[in-house]
């Protein structure tokens, strides 16, 4: 009796929750989709309505062609920045996490202090521009990559450190006895074993860096350096009368995270909740 009642309750609660979630979370995305395929005149009405005509392809072509194919350049730049920064974050982060976990010393306190600073302190923006200018890295793609590395390191090191503690030291020692050099032990024995956490890190950091708006806004001005999030921002003022194209652009920047989410759901969840349970 009580079992049947609780089964009915789970069903009813589920149906109510689904209705609420549809209104709150799914309708805004449907709105983006509908606006993106409407004609210019229809989109200007802002209405939440089924599109009268589906101009999916036409709007896609129009938005890609805008400002001399700026969006393609933006995707290219964003991809280079994301791939470059994530690669360095994996290698640098794993190297620090490895030494931090394996070699107890007074230096570890310094490293932990840096991690805390990196997680908490907001970057000092204008002085960073000053440093970048001094190094000739301001307004350059490789400068942007290094900035993303500097800002993402604390999280990477923490993630790797906790995972490396689950890998037995016997493995390092066996390789050392076989005459492997330290860098060989790390790159040939340890790094391949870190694959699960590496995948998590790649997914989580890629999304964060691809979606980053503030840092390119400050450190990467200039038309030739435009990133995907900046095009959205630029088009916001340009497309005052063409909301269909603005929303097509939003749709285009929403699709990559959606694909990543569908294929790497598990890694995202483990990356985002790491440390949550231990506190």
């Amino acid at each position, binding site marked *: 009796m009580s079992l049947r009642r609780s089964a009915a309750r*789970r*069903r009813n*609660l*589920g*149906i109510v929750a*689904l209705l609420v*979630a549809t209104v709150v*979370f799914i*309708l*805004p995305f449907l*709105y*983006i989709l509908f*606006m993106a395929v409407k004609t210019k005149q229809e989109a200007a009405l802002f*209405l939440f309505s089924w599109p009268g005509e589906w101009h999916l392809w036409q709007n896609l072509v129009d938005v890609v062609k805008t400002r001399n194919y700026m969006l393609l350049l933006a995707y290219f730049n964003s991809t280079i920045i994301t791939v470059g920064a994530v690669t*360095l974050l994996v290698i*640098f982060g794993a190297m*620090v996490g490895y*030494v931090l976990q394996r070699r107890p010393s007074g230096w570890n306190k310094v*490293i932990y202090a840096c991690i805390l*600073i*990196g997680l*908490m*302190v*907001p*970057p000092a*923006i*204008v*002085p960073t*521009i*000053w*440093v*970048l200018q001094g*190094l000739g890295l301001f307004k350059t793609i490789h400068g942007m990559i290094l900035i993303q*590395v*500097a*800002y993402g390191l604390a999280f990477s090191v923490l993630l790797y450190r906790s995972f490396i503690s689950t890998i037995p030291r016997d493995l390092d020692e066996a390789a050392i006895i076989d005459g492997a050099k*330290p860098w060989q*032990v*790390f790159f040939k024995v340890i790094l391949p074993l870190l694959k699960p956490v590496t995948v998590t890190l790649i997914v989580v950091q890629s999304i964060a860096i691809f*979606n980053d*708006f*503030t840092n390119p806004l*400050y450190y990467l001005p200039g038309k030739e350096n435009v990133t995907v999030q900046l095009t*959205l*921002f630029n088009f*916001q003022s340009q497309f005052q009368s063409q909301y269909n194209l603005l*929303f097509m*652009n*939003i749709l285009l*920047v*929403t699709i990559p995270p*959606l694909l990543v*989410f569908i294929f790497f*759901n598990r890694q995202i*969840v483990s990356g*985002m*909740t790491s440390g949550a*349970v*231990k*506190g």
Partner: protein
Amino acid sequence: MATRRSPYPYWFVLPAAVVFVTLFLVPTVASFWFSLTRWDLFDAEFIGWDNYRQFFKEPFLVQGLVNTLIYAVVTSGAKTVLGLLLAVLLTSGIWFQGFLRSVVFFPVLVSTIGVGIAFAALMHPTKGAINLALSWVGIDGPAWLSDPALALYSVAMIDIWKGVGLATLIYIAGLAAISPDYYEASRIDGATPWQQFWRVTVPLVRPATVTVVTLSLIGGLRSFDIIWATTRGGPGFASDVLASVIFKQYQAGFYGLATAGNVILFLLIAMIILPLTWWFNKREVDL
């Protein structure tokens, strides 16, 4: 006796250290000096505390500081409470549970600028879908983003919409770590679900609460892109926060003043997060 080389050499730390020190620590330390100067990126003229004095004298700069606090407390509080409630709901075995978890979490991964632009359209006072829906039930919807009294809270609502999924996810992981024995034992002792929630769930999910509160407070205090995408701090300065004030001063060429804003933001975060962390750790020992 020859000292054997450690198999874990310190040069492994070197590449990361060079990048972090050059592009993070050096600017942070330099910011304390430059905040005391009138600065055009080439020449810095020492002017003492003038930038800070101006920061606490100009009404719109002070408002930015107050707004930052309001925004951080509202978003962090709502994400913590809603996140816990959603996590309890989404671990209770209801229908569509897996799908609902994905739906709640997905906005976390979407571009903040994209979300901001979409909601700015949805919140349009006369044409927006939100006010049209409200008018069906006879409510005259407010000017969400253009009413000075409301703009900051409207932006906070968008932020909560986008970020509550992360809090929920962290709480779901926290709930999964609680042994079912506690619920079993309290049920045998005759505890109601209400009592179980307050006496078992809330105390035992504490590590997740610490993470959610800390992360969302830091995020809220530093928040910039969602505000910039929706109101740009407006109308007037009604929804300006420290991060948007810093950007405006930077754009206007007041680099010393912008850097002073940066230092104030840093101190504000430290003054809130460090005592909070200390308090959380102390309570942990008590338990």
